[in-house]
C-alpha cells in the first residue's frame, strides 16, 4: 500500500505522551569504539528502549577505525551497557536492540568508507523502515570534524534520500577559542543547517537544570523577586574532589575556564538570568539565553586581574589521603600554568541585573563535589529584629544541580524560648526523597530531543560564539599580556586560593559553604 499523505498524524498518540515521539531513524556514531559510546550513548539508547521512548524502528551504526565485526561490536556494547546502564539489562530486550546495531569500519578521512556507509544506510532504510532519517553523532576530537563533515557532504549523506531528515550532534569542546569555534561552526554549517545542528552540553540534560526554568516561570512567587531590587548576588559553584584523572593532556591544553566556565557554568548563568521566553520553542528559549551572554560585561586587561582569580592545585589531602600536585600528574607539563580553579565576578549589564554580581567558582581537588546555584536575597532592613544585633542572615535559594538534586530555601526563624534569638533554618526539597522514580540520564533526554528535532536544550551557534568572546578576553590577559595575573597555588583539599576569598570578601560577601 502507498502512503496517502505525509501529513497524517497518529490518532493513537492522543493522551498517551506529552512529548513528540521521534520518527524511525538511524543513529550513526563516529568514534563508536570510544568511552562515550560505551559509557553513555548506548546505555542511554537502551534505557530509552526499555522505557518505550524510542521509535520502534531505530538502528545504530558505529563508525570507527578499529577492525571488528557487528557481533564483536554488539558484544562489547552489551558488556558496557550491563556495567553502565541506569536500569538492569534484560537479555531479551538487549538482544532485540542489539540486532539493529551495526559496525562500520573506516578511517574518518577515507572517502571509500563513506561511500560504503551510504550504501549500508540505504540497505538499513529498506530493511528496517528508517526512511532516510539520520542522526550523526560526532563523538570524536574536533580535529576530525572537518574531514567527517566534508565526506558526509561529498556523499550526500547530509541529505535524506527520501524526504526525511538528517541532523548532527556535536560534542564539546565547541572550539578552543572564538576563532576556532567560529571556524568549527563554519565547517559544520557547510554541511548542516543550524536547525539540524545540535551542540550537546550534558549539563542542560540534567533534571535540575531543566527545573530552573520550571522553578522560575511555573511559580508565581519567585519572578517578582528575581531582579536587582530583591537579589543581592548569585553564586554558581562547580566543585570536585577529583584531579585530572587520566585526562592530563586534554586538561593541560584546556584548563578550568575553557573546560567548565565557557559552557556548563555560563549555561547555568543564562538559565538563572534570562528573561521569560515568549514560548517554549527552542529558538525562543535560546534567544533569551543569548541576550544574557551578550549582556555580560566584557573583562579587558586590568579588569581580568580585578575580577578573575586563577589557581592550580598543589599537593594536599583528599578524604584523608595524600594527593599529588597538578604539575606531578601523568602527562601534565611539570611547568604547566594551566588553571585548575577559577573564581570570577561577572556583571550582567541589563535592566534586571544591573549592579548584581554573579560569582562563579569552579575547581578540582576541592574538599567536596557539587554543582549549585545560590540566589542570595537582600537582607531585611535592620530596624526591628536585627536592630541591635546587626543584620541577620539573608534568605538564600539554592538550586542543587548535582549530586542530591533539589532545592532549598534558607530563612530566619525564632529559636523557641523566652528570649528573642533568631537563627537560619532550611526548607529542603530533595528529588531523591520526594520522587521514588529515578530521573533519566542527561544523555537519554538529549538524544531523544535530537531525534525529535527539539533543540531547546542544545547550544546555538551565536550562544557559543558569544560565550567564547567573553572567555577569550580572560585567556588573552592570562597568556598574552605583558603582566599576566598570578596563577595562585592552592593545597588540594582546600577551597582554593585565598585570593578567591578576597575577590568576594572585598564586596562584603563570602562564598557559600557547600
Amino acid at each position, binding site marked *: 500500500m502507498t*502512503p496517502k*499523505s505525509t501529513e497524517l498524524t497518529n490518532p493513537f498518540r492522543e*493522551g498517551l505522551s506529552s512529548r513528540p515521539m521521534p520518527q524511525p531513524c538511524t543513529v550513526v556514531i563516529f568514534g563508536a569504539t570510544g568511552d562515550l559510546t560505551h559509557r553513555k550513548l548506548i546505555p542511554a539508547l537502551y534505557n530509552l528502549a526499555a522505557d518505550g521512548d524510542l521509535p520502534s524502528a531505530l538502528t545504530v551504526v558505529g563508525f570507527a577505525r578499529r577492525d571488528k565485526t557487528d557481533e564483536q561490536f554488539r558484544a562489547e556494547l552489551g558488556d558496557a551497557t550491563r556495567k553502565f546502564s541506569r536500569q538492569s539489562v534484560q537479555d531479551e530486550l538487549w538482544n532485540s536492540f542489539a540486532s539493529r546495531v551495526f559496525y562500520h569500519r573506516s578511517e574518518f578521512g577515507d572517502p571509500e568508507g563513506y561511500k560504503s556507509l551510504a550504501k549500508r544506510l540505504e540497505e538499513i532504510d529498506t530493511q528496517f523502515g528508517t*526512511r532516510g532519517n539520520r542522526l550523526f553523532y560526532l563523538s570524536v576530537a574536533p580535529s576530525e570534524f572537518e574531514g567527517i563533515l566534508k565526506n558526509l557532504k561529498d556523499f550526500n549523506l547530509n541529505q535524506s534520500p527520501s524526504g526525511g531528515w538528517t541532523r548532527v550532534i556535536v560534542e564539546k569542546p565547541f572550539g578552543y577559542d572564538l576563532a576556532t569555534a567560529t571556524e568549527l561552526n563554519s565547517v559544520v554549517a557547510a554541511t548542516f543547517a543550524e536547525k539540524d545542528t545540535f551542540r550537546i552540553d550534558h549539563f542542560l540534560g540534567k533534571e535540575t537544570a531543566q527545573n530552573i526554568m520550571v522553578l522560575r516561570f511555573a511559580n508565581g512567587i519567585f519572578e517578582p523577586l528575581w531582579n536587582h531590587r530583591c537579589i543581592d548576588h548569585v553564586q554558581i559553584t562547580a566543585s570536585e574532589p577529583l584531579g585530572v584523572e587520566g585526562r592530563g593532556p586534554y586538561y593541560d591544553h584546556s584548563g578550568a575556564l575553557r573546560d567548565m566556565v565557557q559552557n556548563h557554568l555560563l549555561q547555568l548563568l543564562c538559565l538563572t538570568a534570562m528573561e521569560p521566553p515568549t514560548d517554549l520553542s527552542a529558538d525562543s528559549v535560546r534567544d533569551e539565553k543569548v541576550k544574557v551572554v551578550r549582556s555580560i560585561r566584557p573583562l579587558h586587561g586590568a579588569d581580568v586581574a580585578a575580577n578573575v582569580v586563577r589557581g592550580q592545585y598543589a599537593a594536599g589531602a583528599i578524604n584523608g589521603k595524600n594527593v599529588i600536585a597538578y604539575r606531578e600528574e601523568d602527562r601534565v607539563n611539570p611547568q604547566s600554568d594551566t588553571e585548575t580553579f577559577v573564581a570570577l565576578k561577572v556583571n550582567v549589564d541589563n535592566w534586571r541585573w544591573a549592579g548584581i554580581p554573579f560569582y562563579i567558582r569552579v575547581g578540582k581537588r576541592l574538599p567536596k563535589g557539587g554543582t549549585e546555584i545560590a540566589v542570595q536575597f537582600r537582607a531585611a532592613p535592620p530596624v526591628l529584629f536585627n536592630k541591635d544585633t546587626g543584620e541577620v542572615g539573608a534568605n538564600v535559594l539554592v538550586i542543587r544541580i548535582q549530586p542530591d538534586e533539589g532545592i532549598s530555601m534558607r530563612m530566619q526563624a525564632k529559636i523557641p524560648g523566652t528570649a528573642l534569638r533568631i537563627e537560619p533554618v532550611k526548607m529542603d526539597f530533595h528529588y531523591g526523597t*520526594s520522587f521514588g522514580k529515578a530521573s533519566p540520564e542527561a544523555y537519554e533526554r538529549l538524544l531523544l530531543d535530537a531525534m525529535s528535532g527539539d533543540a531547546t536544550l542544545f547550544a546555538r551557534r551565536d550562544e557559543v560564539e558569544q560565550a567564547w568572546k567573553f572567555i577569550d578576553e580572560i585567556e588573552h590577559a592570562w597568556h598574552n599580556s605583558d603582566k599576566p595575573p598570578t596563577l595562585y597555588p592552592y593545597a588540594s583539599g582546600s577551597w582554593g586560593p585565598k585570593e578567591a576569598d578576597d575577590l568576594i570578601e572585598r564586596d562584603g560577601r563570602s562564598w557559600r559553604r557547600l
Partner: protein
Amino acid sequence: MAQSITELTQGMPVEIGKIDRELKRLWAEGAGAATRASLINFAVYCEGAATMQESTEVISEITREHACRAILIGIDPDTTHAPVQAWILAHCHLSRAGAKQVCCEQITFLLGNDGLPLIPNIVFSHLDSDLPLILWWRGEFPAESEDQLWTWVDRLVFDSQTWSHVPSQFALLRTTIEPASPRMALCDLNWTRSLYLRQAVAQIFDSPEYLAELAALNAVEIVHAPGARSTALLLSGWLAAQLRWTLQGADGAVVNFKDAAGAVVTVTLREEAGRALGSVRLTAGETSILVAHHEGSGFLHADIRLPGNRESHYLMPGGKDDTVSLLNDELMSGGRHKVYLKAVAALVDIL
C-alpha cells in the same frame, strides 16, 4: 480461614482525637534516621478484613515510588453502630541513594457497615494540607453519597472490572460523581490495564509507513483473559473513538463498527487464559499488525507483516497487571482522561 477484623495488624492503635500527636511522636522517635516525605494524600476505601490487609500491603509498595500520606478507611460489613477505631503506621524504604530511610505515614480507620456518612469528615480532617487528594475507591460506588467528598478529590481511582453491574456504576459516575467536581480526574484501573498495549500500538503507528494503513483497517481481534471482557471492550472503545468508528451493534464475541468512510470494521473478542489483555491483532487487507504478550516475557512483541512478505519484529515495554503496578502507572500519569471518556462513550450502549 478468613481473617477477622480484630486480627488485623494495621499498626499502633490510637485514639482518633490524638492522631496528630501520635504521628508527631512517631516521627520524633525516628528523627535523624528517617525522613518523612509526602507529595500526595492517598485515601483508600475498602470493605472487609482481607481487603484492608491487602490494601495496607499495596500502600507499603506504592510508597516506594510515591511519597504520600495514606488514609485507609475500612468498612467492617459485620458490625453496626461500632465506634470508629484508628491505627497509625509508617512505611519506610531506603532512598534511591541508599543512604537514608524515606518514610510515609498511614492512618487506618475501621468503621461499621453504617459508617459511610462518616467518611468525608474522616478524610477531610486528616489530609496533609495543600497536597492533592487521590481517592482509590475499592468496590461499587454507593447509590447515595456525600457530594462534598467527591468535590475534594483530585483523582478518583476505581476498577470497573470489579463492578457487578457496569451500566449502573457508569451511570452513577456520569450523573453524580463526575459532575460534583470539575477538577476531578477519573482513573479506571481497567483502562490502565490496556496502557502498555495502547502505547505499543501508538508507537507502531508513529511510523508514517504503518500510519497510512489505518484507513484500510477492517478487522481487529482482541484476546483477553476470562473475566477481562470489559478490559477488551474498553480497548475496542479506544480504537473506535480514536479512529472515529461508530458502533453498529454487538453479537456475542463480535462487535461491529462502521468507519468514517462507511466501511464495516469487525472487532472479535476471544477469551484465553493469560494476561488480562493477551494480544491485539489489527488487519488492513494484506497488512497485519499483532501486538502480543508472550509467556515468560516481560515485553510486548510486535509482529508486523506488510504486503510483499516484508516482516518486522519489535519488543516494547509490557507492563504488569498486578494492582501495585497498575496504581504506580496511574499515579505516574497526569492530567484528565479525556481519551478514556471518549472510549467509554464509544461503547456505552454495550458495556
